[in-house]
């Protein structure tokens, strides 16, 4: 029984991480119809920036003050938001009217750049590091004999809170209506006085901030940060992307639902079936969904206009 609870909790936490990252993919795709391949690298940068900041503030040891985590989180989200904004401005905006394939290739280029630039000694270095413990290791509470660490509870809470915030933004504010209008018809949106470039930039800011949060909490949960050019980040991003697609890409609630679905399948299959194929399960889901219901669980199939 406790094993079941353990897997459940782990899936919940992992699902929350995927959700934070998946939201970024889905927001950008909704607005630009483009898979931001470099998104997983913003996650990576988020993790490493939070590690660096914690060091800068001297919060590397256990027993850092309660203020440590929120401060590092906000700063990390801010820095990565700027990073995402810059990437869009420099690499993607010039290609706004170009064939989609070109932007995809550019995104791959940005991704490779971030991974390998991060590897340089001057930046993050080529060695894996240990993430400082910004949150106490004491369990928050126990369920069925299983300890629930603060980290896990925080991630889940944060993911849900940010999702609700995003929902409010997109469906109840003028900016959100503008984002939805741009995602439907960019040209007519500009006829309403909407500054499309600015809306796109804001979308990237939000998506990147969420990614940063995901990266930081990934580090806090798993403790070890692998090298920037390691497959860990690509796989993490890929799985979050699968989550977004499964939920219906472009759909915010779908992204979160997909994230938890993927996490649960991955964890339960890994525990009760074969752990070696953990990654393969996720891709198998992607392929099945794309073949059977390409619009995803909550999405709608848009017919290709000739």
């Amino acid at each position, binding site marked *: 029984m406790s094993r079941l609870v353990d897997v459940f909790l782990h899936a919940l936490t992992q699902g929350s991480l995927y959700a934070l990252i998946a939201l970024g993919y889905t927001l950008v795709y909704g607005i630009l119809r483009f*898979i931001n391949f470099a998104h997983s690298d913003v996650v990576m940068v988020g993790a490493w920036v939070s590690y660096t900041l914690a060091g800068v503030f001297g919060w590397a040891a256990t027993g850092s003050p309660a203020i440590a985590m929120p401060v590092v989180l906000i700063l990390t989200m801010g820095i990565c938001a700027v990073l995402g904004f810059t990437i869009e401005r420099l690499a993607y905006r010039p*290609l706004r009217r170009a064939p989609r*394939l*070109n932007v995809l*290739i550019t995104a791959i280029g940005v991704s490779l750049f971030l991974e390998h630039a991060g590897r340089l000694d001057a930046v993050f270095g080529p060695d894996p590091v240990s993430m400082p413990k910004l949150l106490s290791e004491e369990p928050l509470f126990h369920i069925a004999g299983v300890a629930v660490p603060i980290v896990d509870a925080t991630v889940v809470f944060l993911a849900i809170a940010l999702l609700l915030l995003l929902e409010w933004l997109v469906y109840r504010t003028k900016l959100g209506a503008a984002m939805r209008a741009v995602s439907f018809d960019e040209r007519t949106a500009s006829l309403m006085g909407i500054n499309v470039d600015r809306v796109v930039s804001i979308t990237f800011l939000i998506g990147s901030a969420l990614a940063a949060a995901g990266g930081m909490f990934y580090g806090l949960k798993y403790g070890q940060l692998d090298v920037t050019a390691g497959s860990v980040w690509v796989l993490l991003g*890929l799985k979050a992307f699968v989550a977004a*697609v499964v939920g219906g890409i472009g759909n915010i609630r779908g992204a979160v639902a997909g994230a938890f679905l993927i996490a649960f399948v991955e964890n339960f299959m890994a525990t009760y079936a074969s752990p070696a194929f953990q990654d393969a399960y996720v*891709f198998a889901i992607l392929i099945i969904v*794309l073949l059977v219901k390409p619009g995803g669980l909550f999405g709608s199939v848009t017919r290709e206009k000739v």
Partner: protein
Amino acid sequence: MKTLAQRVPELTPGLLPTLGRSIWPFLAGFGFAYLMQVGIAPAVGEFYGSLLVNIGIAIVLAVSLNIVNGFAGQFSIGHAGFMLVGGNAAAAIVYYGSIKLWGSPEIHGGFLGPGELLLVAGCVAGGLWAAFAGLIVGLPSLRLRGDYLAIVTLGFGEIMRVLVTQTGPQLRGKDAAEASWFTLMTKLNGNLGFSNPQGAYLDPQNPFWVWVFVSILLIVAYRLKSSTHGRALLAVRENEVAAEAMGVPTTRAKVSAFVLAAFFAGIGGALFAHELGSTLKPDPSTLGFQKSFDIVIMVVIGGMGSITGAVLAAVILTVMPELFREFDQYRMIVYALALIFMMILRPQGLMGLRELWDTSWWRRIFRRGGAS
């Protein structure tokens, strides 16, 4: 005055001239490979010889990927997966085959290079296995557009990698001789990579088969591009809906592109696996998406759809890292920036869709005085 229909028999070339016309490029290819083997390889020494072999393999990989990405316009970024499949299949066949045929894994026979009949069999078999994998990957491609297809191919590359890591440890000696082929195919040494410690089948001194396969691929690619089938692929690349409306069997075209490209990628992987013997193995850690990206970068920079471009880029991007060895940590950064700038400033790459004979200076040299 005879009608055209009546003149068909006299206009149709005979069997012998047709065969001759079809076959002579392949003979020329063999000749070129022989030249590389007996002429160039001994002359350039160890370092450049090895570089040449690497260039040959890179050409195979780039030109094969070009068939899918360039001709058919399907953005596949899991090419290394096919290398892995082909490489492992070939390595298993050569190694286990040596044991089964001659009782030991040492290299046997061959007049142009060590053990090459088995090597060629291994390469072709590896190619076929990879082609089969290409069929599996290509079928879902029927439904998917650009971005999605890219992710799925990446995913397939990962799945293939995971599957290979799950294979059992390499069998040796008596175990290998007694096991059935079926069992042997599942003993590919997992994450450590399949190795043949007995020595190199391909080394700087014996590049013959590399260049044979390069020639075959170049001929096939060129003929494909100028054929009806190739035109169909290019049509699919330009506008799939319009192509379908014109009667092009788009699904069949796309899948065939995948299969053909995968076949040659498998051969590339097989060659890669046998280069220098045990130092380069077809193992999951070196043939992951990083390798796929390396090949994609070659195709993009060369110009998607241009065979010449792919060859050029393969040469440049194989030679440059050697020249700038000290700056290796900056290599990928430079490539990444090159990719970004290329897309913004010159998205068609070096050659676009053109081939060598489409360029202005070729025309100037070979058609002086003629109409442009």
